[in-house]
């Protein structure tokens, strides 16, 4: 998708100045001692620098990088004043990934040459590990997983990816930038669990009898890629509808709906509590949902449902935006999302 033939640059490093210093010193010494071989040494270094530059340039000319997926993560805890410390969701042994990992496919696409000594970086993000790529010979490919430093809650954008290398001698750094077209990924709020949250009481009554383990048909749900196709409503598909999965229930399954408006406290704190609550409910195998102002409450279960809700939390406007609650209520979270995009252009 992002074939990055363009955006290559080269920059000086400490090695460049070191090389220049050696060359100048050697030429001076050769001139003062009238030493022919010393001149040869200096000019050999000049040749190494010049030809090495081209080698370094070509080293990154025939490499293609593509993002396979961005694995979302949770934000680190935020210090919230005035709230009693709550037990963290991670405390009960469940792994909560705190670092976003980006899976990338890197391929050497040339007919000759290779791609060596490459470091990968994502401008705007701090790469914690996986920055060094293995050497790629002609036509070889590899998959790299880059771990980013913890990020604050929100939606982040991968604008571009930079491959840089000091190959072959460390005298110059060549950087190849590939645009990722502002690929977005969410960072979920830090989950905080414990304590009861005010559920929407009427909701529990109305759908309380719904469950997943019964045999009664209770409704349709959108098919998630990777799911078993056993319960797909094929008839509907044949009629031209999108793929939907028939859901069965009937046994007494607990259904909980959380109303955002009823939650007390600061926004970030609320987001953290809701994230923790969602994780708990998903783990318990319950059916759950979240009602945002101005939007229809979504009910469901499964990893996809969880990811969907967590992403909504991630996209929730930051605290400053609350100063104008009317605007927020009018447009909802989607307003800010679009606004952010326009601003970033």
């Amino acid at each position, binding site marked *: 998708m992002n074939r990055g033939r363009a955006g290559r640059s080269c920059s000086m490093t400490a090695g460049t100045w070191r090389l220049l210093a*050696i060359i100048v010193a050697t030429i001076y010494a050769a*001139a*003062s001692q009238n030493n022919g071989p010393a001149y040869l040494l200096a000019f050999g270094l000049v040749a190494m620098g010049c030809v090495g530059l081209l080698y370094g340039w070509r080293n990154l000319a025939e490499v293609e990088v593509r993002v396979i997926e961005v694995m979302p993560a949770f934000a680190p805890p935020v210090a919230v004043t005035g709230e009693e410390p709550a037990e963290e969701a991670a405390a009960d042994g469940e792994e909560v990934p705190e670092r976003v990992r980006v899976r990338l496919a890197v391929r050497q696409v040339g007919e000759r040459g290779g791609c060596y000594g490459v470091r990968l970086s994502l401008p705007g993000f701090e790469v914690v590990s996986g920055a060094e790529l293995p050497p790629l010979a002609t036509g070889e490919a590899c998959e790299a997983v880059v771990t980013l430093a913890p990020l604050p809650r929100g939606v982040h954008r991968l604008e571009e990816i930079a491959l840089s290398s000091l190959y072959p001698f460390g005298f110059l750094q060549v950087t190849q930038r590939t645009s990722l077209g502002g690929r977005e990924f969410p960072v979920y709020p830090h989950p905080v669990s414990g304590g009861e949250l005010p559920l929407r009481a009427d909701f529990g009554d109305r759908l309380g009898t719904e469950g997943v383990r019964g045999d009664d048909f209770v409704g349709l749900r959108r098919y998630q890629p990777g799911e078993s196709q056993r319960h797909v409503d094929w008839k509907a598909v044949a009629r031209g509808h999108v793929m939907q999965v028939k859901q069965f229930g009937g046994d007494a399954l607990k259904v909980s709906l959380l109303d955002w408006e009823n939650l007390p406290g600061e926004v970030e704190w609320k987001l953290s509590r809701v994230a923790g609550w969602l994780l708990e409910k998903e783990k318990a195998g319950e059916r759950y949902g979240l009602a945002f102002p101005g939007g229809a409450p979504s009910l469901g279960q499964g990893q996809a449902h969880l990811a969907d809700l967590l992403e909504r939390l991630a996209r929730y406007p930051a605290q400053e935006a609350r100063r104008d609650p009317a605007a927020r209520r009018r447009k909802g979270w989607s307003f800010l999302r679009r606004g952010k995009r326009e601003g970033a252009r």
Partner: protein
Amino acid sequence: MSGGRRFGRGKVSEVTLGDGLWLGAVLIAASLPLMGAVGFPVVACFITAILLFLNGLREAKGVSRLVLWGMLLIGAGVVWFVHGSVVGMEPGVALFLGLFGVKILELRRARDYRVALSLGYFLLLCNLFISSELSVSLIVGCLFLVLGMTLHRFHFGNARHGSQALRIATGQVAKILVQGAPIILLLFFFFPRAPQGFGVQLFRKQTTGMSDELRPGTVEELVADGSLAFRVRFLGYDPKQSPYYWRGVVLWQSRGLEWYRGGFRDMLAQGTTGRQGRWIHQEVILEPHGGYWLLALDQPLMGPERSRLQLGRYLLSRTRVDQRRLYEAFSGELVEPLSQMERAMALRLPRDEGAISQRLWDLADSWKGTPREKVAAAQRFFSSGGFQYTLSSGGYGHRDGWEMLDEFIFNRKVGFCSHYAAAYSSLMRMAGIPSRTIIGYAGGEWNPIGGFYSIYQSDAHAWSEVWLEDEGWVRIDPTRFVPGAAGQTPALPLQAVEEETAGDAVQGDFGGEGFLQMRRLSYQWAAINYRWTLWVLGYDHDVQREFFNSIGLYRFRTATIFLASLLAAGAVMAALWWWLRRPPAAEPLEMAYRQLGLKLARLGMERKPGETPAAYCERVVNLRPDLRPVLEPLFSRYALLRYAPWKLAVPEEDLAGFCREVAAFKPAKTVPEPVA
């Protein structure tokens, strides 16, 4: 860092043991040839530092600060002990080695590693300064390659331990150097060479060689010295008629067995009038000797630039010969009248009566007849007076030269060429014949492959010259009259040439094809060495100037060529830089969208800055409703391609399709008339 090691004090080493071994091996190999110049203890200290560093890497704990400071003190102490100073080439190199060793001890970071490798190039430079032998240059060339491979390997990537890295490094570095060879050659020939005396000169320790005074023992010291003194190639002449005497310094002042240049040392020779015969054109490569004399075939008539022909016809350089010198000189036979002043100088003896013993006066007076008869009588005296040739004549203590002469002539009767030449010249003066003593070299080794003569320090020689009225200055080599000295006197060049060209004779003498092969190989090596010296070592400011002149740049001064080449190089670098840093071409989607905007701009509907695709589309379609069926899908497609949420992957065909459609979009200039 992957592959890093954690050190005791919480520092992470970015350098692996493999990296350390490569670095250590190169540096140790580069320090070994320096042993002769900087002394064994200094090199041993340096190697110890490298081993300590490697041990620290192996145990993954680094080198402690105590060891570091200890090595620094030991290193400084050793340098001071061995050299006693830090000024000059050898102490400077020793100091560099010591400090470099300490730098390696505290090497942990990748940055330090790169610095150490850079300093490795200076170590190679030191090697080139200490010795300009071809063999050392070849070693340095190999180490240059290995150092490049080490750098390459370090920047190869996180799997730099594998044999793959080594294989690729060898290939790549060799390829880079081969491809860079034109740059090297171009720079080598065209980069302006500095004239002699540029910059700070680091003087080498005095090399042994001929000196400009003759005392018992001065020449003997050189006999065991097999190092090269100079090499000579004759241009357009094959001198076969006389033994080779290479004139160094003419000594005018006699003190019996000691001779000095005397008070008229700075007097120049008279003009070369009355020359006879042909001039012998020679090209000399003189090894540095720390003195001023320039050797040439006896007798030099004309020297190179920046040299003078001194009274007595010998060449003196205006600058000290501290670097190898390549020059041309002309020699020939010359008869010229002896001026009054020269006669006085050539007959000068001590004024006080008692300086010369009566025995010596009696001996000189016993030679009667014409000057030629006196010369012959003195020759007979040396050949039949019981004199013997020896390399170990023993010291004479701090005695007066005339006392030494008395002792030599009447008691010891053993000596080397310096004794005989000095004694003969002194006795000639006492007999009333103008004489002087010459120090130089005699003989030389003919290299049939390279076509040049090699003269070694062991060929150092001293001889006499006497003035005969009808013949001018006549060379007398008294050592040749002494029994037992036949093998030590210079061979005739004719013999030398014949010996080498007639392989059978050599084979017969020394037996075996192997010896001949060895001999041939050594000549070949010497011939390559000679070419190297001529073309690489000898390519200096003057030779470059000649080269420039020969290719038509004679109208420009070197400074002009230098500035022009600097400007040209700067322009090329700037162009290259501009080309490398040029703004990146936009991605295909953006290019296609811009193309669409340009096409619409031609219709007078330019995209406003900051206008979103949807708003732009709206505006255009309102102005040109006829374009709505084409533009609306195009713009929505662009929006989808550009702004699709991160979960949706856009297939590549969509992008290609969009680009194609934009390319195919050809709107009419005006709104077409609706067809009725």
